């Protein structure tokens, strides 16, 4: 049945893409999309939260884009080479690229963006830049990155939200956070910022001087700010908006919306993020320090039921720390599937004696609340007592960061590579009270630490795969967190909006190639 589903999906995709290839894109038209929540700002070099990336990804670009297999594609760099020893990467930039204000885009902008601006403002990129020895621009069209040692995921950090290109002529020598230009972002992208009516909409217009002939196809994009989830569904139903990015409507509305005429949806476009959900298990103190109890919890959860009942069947039951859409995923890790018998056996071997475990649901709405209820029930059926702790977002952040829980729901992005988005959850150097995003469980395993460290700096993918396979096997056996689902956030759109999702970050940079089949 499962195979059949995959086959039909694959067939559907094949048909859809061949259809898309046959049609010639039409130029013109206005796209109305939902943006949720309203972004705090659009200066992608300073702010990288979800909605900012979704809008600013049309304004700013990076050197590369990624296809759905996370293989790099040209963007501002038209070609790139990697030296034999894996230490030198040379990028050649596109010709005739200009900033939205008319100034030419050159290699000096790249050096400024990466080495000066983002090194100061972008924490996630900074963590990767420690491997970089120097960034040089031998001429206007060439940029050379020299690394201290090979860094496996290096070609994976040139995504728009990770390394957006910042105009040097506007920002050099200024106070970045307070530069007035932050309100009127200037990038190289296919769309220019036009107007932002706070609380209402963000208006982007076509960049007539875009370096790709004929692109973009759309004349303008309105990102509508609609704070209430039910109103967003209604706005789509009434035709006020034609594009609902993943996560912008509640799960239970999705079947109704996708059943409408002329409505298409896709689960693609999240491969780079690979949202992976799990429950932290508090290994700092309390009952979850017991590995047998952790295994009992893991086997007690009916994750397929949760996916079908709460996520409309969207998503994949996680097999371990690395999502199946992330590179170096190992499919043959130790079994952690739903098995109440096994759970009871592990429970009998554990020191658990009836304590009530505190479960912290993620305060992101109905689905997560119901999910926590289902888990509590799953646990009670194998003999583990638990109760839900009600919190709001601030309370969740605080309790999680302060390790004040036994089990706590969360989900995090993987950014395509274990070194970028997975290791941070399991290495002991990343244990620090106060943050809900680091190694919150408090998992300490020296072998895991050294394997993750080694795997990141291997030159060849084969060597990395070997180390990552080993580390995945160890981590799954230790169950420092209870993996739940690889989440999917379907993008829902009117079928006459063509090709809105063509890359691994989906609608975040997809509007360059999208077009409307309307008169």
């Amino acid at each position, binding site marked *: 049945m499962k195979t059949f589903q995959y086959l039909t999906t694959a067939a559907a995709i094949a048909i859809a893409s061949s259809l898309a290839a046959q049609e010639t894109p039409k130029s013109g038209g206005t796209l109305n999309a939902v943006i949720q929540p309203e972004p705090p700002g659009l200066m992608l070099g300073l702010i990288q939260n979800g909605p900012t990336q979704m809008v600013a990804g049309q304004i700013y670009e990076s050197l590369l884009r990624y296809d759905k297999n996370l293989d790099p594609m040209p963007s501002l760099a038209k070609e790139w080479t990697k030296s034999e020893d894996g230490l030198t990467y040379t990028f050649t930039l596109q010709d005739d690229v200009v900033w939205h204000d008319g100034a030419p885009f050159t290699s000096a902008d790249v050096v400024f963006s990466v080495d000066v601006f983002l090194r100061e403002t972008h924490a996630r990129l900074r963590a990767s830049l420690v491997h970089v020895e120097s960034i040089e621009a031998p001429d206007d069209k060439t940029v050379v990155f020299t690394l201290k040692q090979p860094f496996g995921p290096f070609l994976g950090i040139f995504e728009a939200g990770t390394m957006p290109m910042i105009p040097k002529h506007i920002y050099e020598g200024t106070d970045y956070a307070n530069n007035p230009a932050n309100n009127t972002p200037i990038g190289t992208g296919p769309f220019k910022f036009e107007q932002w009516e706070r609380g209402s909409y963000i208006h982007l217009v076509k960049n007539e001087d875009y370096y790709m002939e004929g692109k973009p196809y759309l004349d303008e994009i309105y990102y509508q700010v609609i704070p209430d989830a039910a109103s967003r569904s209604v706005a789509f139903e009434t035709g006020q908006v034609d594009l609902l990015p993943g996560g912008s409507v*509640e799960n*239970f509305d999705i079947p*109704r919306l996708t059943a409408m005429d002329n409505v298409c949806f896709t689960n693609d476009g999240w491969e780079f993020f690979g949202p992976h959900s799990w429950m932290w298990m508090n290994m700092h103190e309390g009952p979850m320090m017991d590995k047998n109890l952790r295994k009992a919890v893991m086997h007690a959860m009916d994750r397929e*039921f949760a996916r079908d*009942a*709460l996520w409309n069947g969207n998503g994949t039951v996680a097999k371990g720390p690395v999502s199946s859409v992330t590179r170096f995923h190992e499919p043959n890790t130790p079994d952690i599937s739903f098995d109440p018998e096994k759970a009871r056996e592990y429970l009998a071997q554990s020191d658990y004696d009836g304590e009530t475990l505190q479960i912290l*649901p993620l305060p992101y709405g*109905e689905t997560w*609340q*119901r999910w*926590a*209820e*289902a888990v*509590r*029930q799953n646990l*009670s*059926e194998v003999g583990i007592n638990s*109760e*839900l*702790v*009600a919190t*709001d977002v601030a309370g969740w952040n605080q309790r999680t960061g302060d390790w004040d829980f036994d089990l706590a729901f969360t989900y995090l992005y993987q950014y395509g590579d274990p070194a970028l988005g997975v290791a941070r959850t399991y290495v002991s150097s990343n244990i620090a009270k106060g943050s809900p995003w680091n190694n919150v469980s408090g998992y300490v395993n020296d072998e895991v630490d050294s394997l993750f460290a080694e795997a990141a700096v291997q030159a060849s993918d084969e060597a990395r795969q070997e180390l990552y396979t080993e580390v995945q096997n160890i981590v799954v056996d230790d169950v420092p967190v209870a993996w739940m689902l690889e989440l999917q956030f379907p993008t829902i759109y009117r079928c006459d909006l063509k090709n809105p999702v063509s890359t691994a970050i989906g609608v975040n940079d997809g509007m360059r190639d999208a077009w409307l089949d309307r008169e």
Partner: protein
Amino acid sequence: MRAFWSRFRQNRGAVIGLIILAIVIICAIAAPFLFPRSPWSMVQRPFLPPFEMDGLPLGTDALGRDVLSGLFHGARVSLLVGLVSTVVALAIGIPIGALAGYYGGLVDDALMRFTEFFQTIPSFALAIVLLAIFQPTLAYVILAIAIVSWPPVARLVRGEVLSLRNREFVEAATLSGQSNLRIILRQVLPNALPPIIVLASLMVATAILLESSLSFLGLGDPNVMSWGYMIGAARTVLRTAWWLSFIPGIAILLTVLALNLIGEGLNDALNPRLRKRTS
């Protein structure tokens, strides 16, 4: 007592209310015997409509939980919250009202300004704020409801005590040298009881509604199956599975209606003169 019952019986609505309430109480008592499994157990496929499967006459909710079981177990929570929070509210309101009414003067002023302070804040908003500050456990839900519902009790008792304390029997008690506390407890309050009982029966109804509203908004105890929770959880699927909100909604409606009818009957039975005048 017999006279009371015969007067109560004359109000047909009150009798119906009493029957409904009795049924709800029986459901609450019978819940653990009829449905020994937790009402949170996921027993069948989600969204099973009512009357489709034997053994699940009211179907299942979004997680495949038995709606009938939830209804029975929810009755326990609703009644518990209604009764306990009313008792707590009376325990706060009666002493304040009695002291204010009996002593008058500065004491009265101070206590009534304090009461008005609570009355000026919309009670539902105050309950939400209290629960946002506390952890939303069942005990705190009850406490929050009690805190927002005692002021009318205090005002009612004060009024009754004010009118009673100048009566001859109170003066006689004073002359006979009884202490103030003894007079309040033995002479004044027993005579003020009838309107308090009527008010209390209505307060139980209001408390059940308040608890349901709070759970509906997701501010109830997440570990307790209550009617308000059932409606709140089903609200989002109103368009596809309306009966999930409708069934517990009917349960709340009937229970609250029953309590109001009983309150009416009590009023008739305890104030016979009033009844003759109005009917």
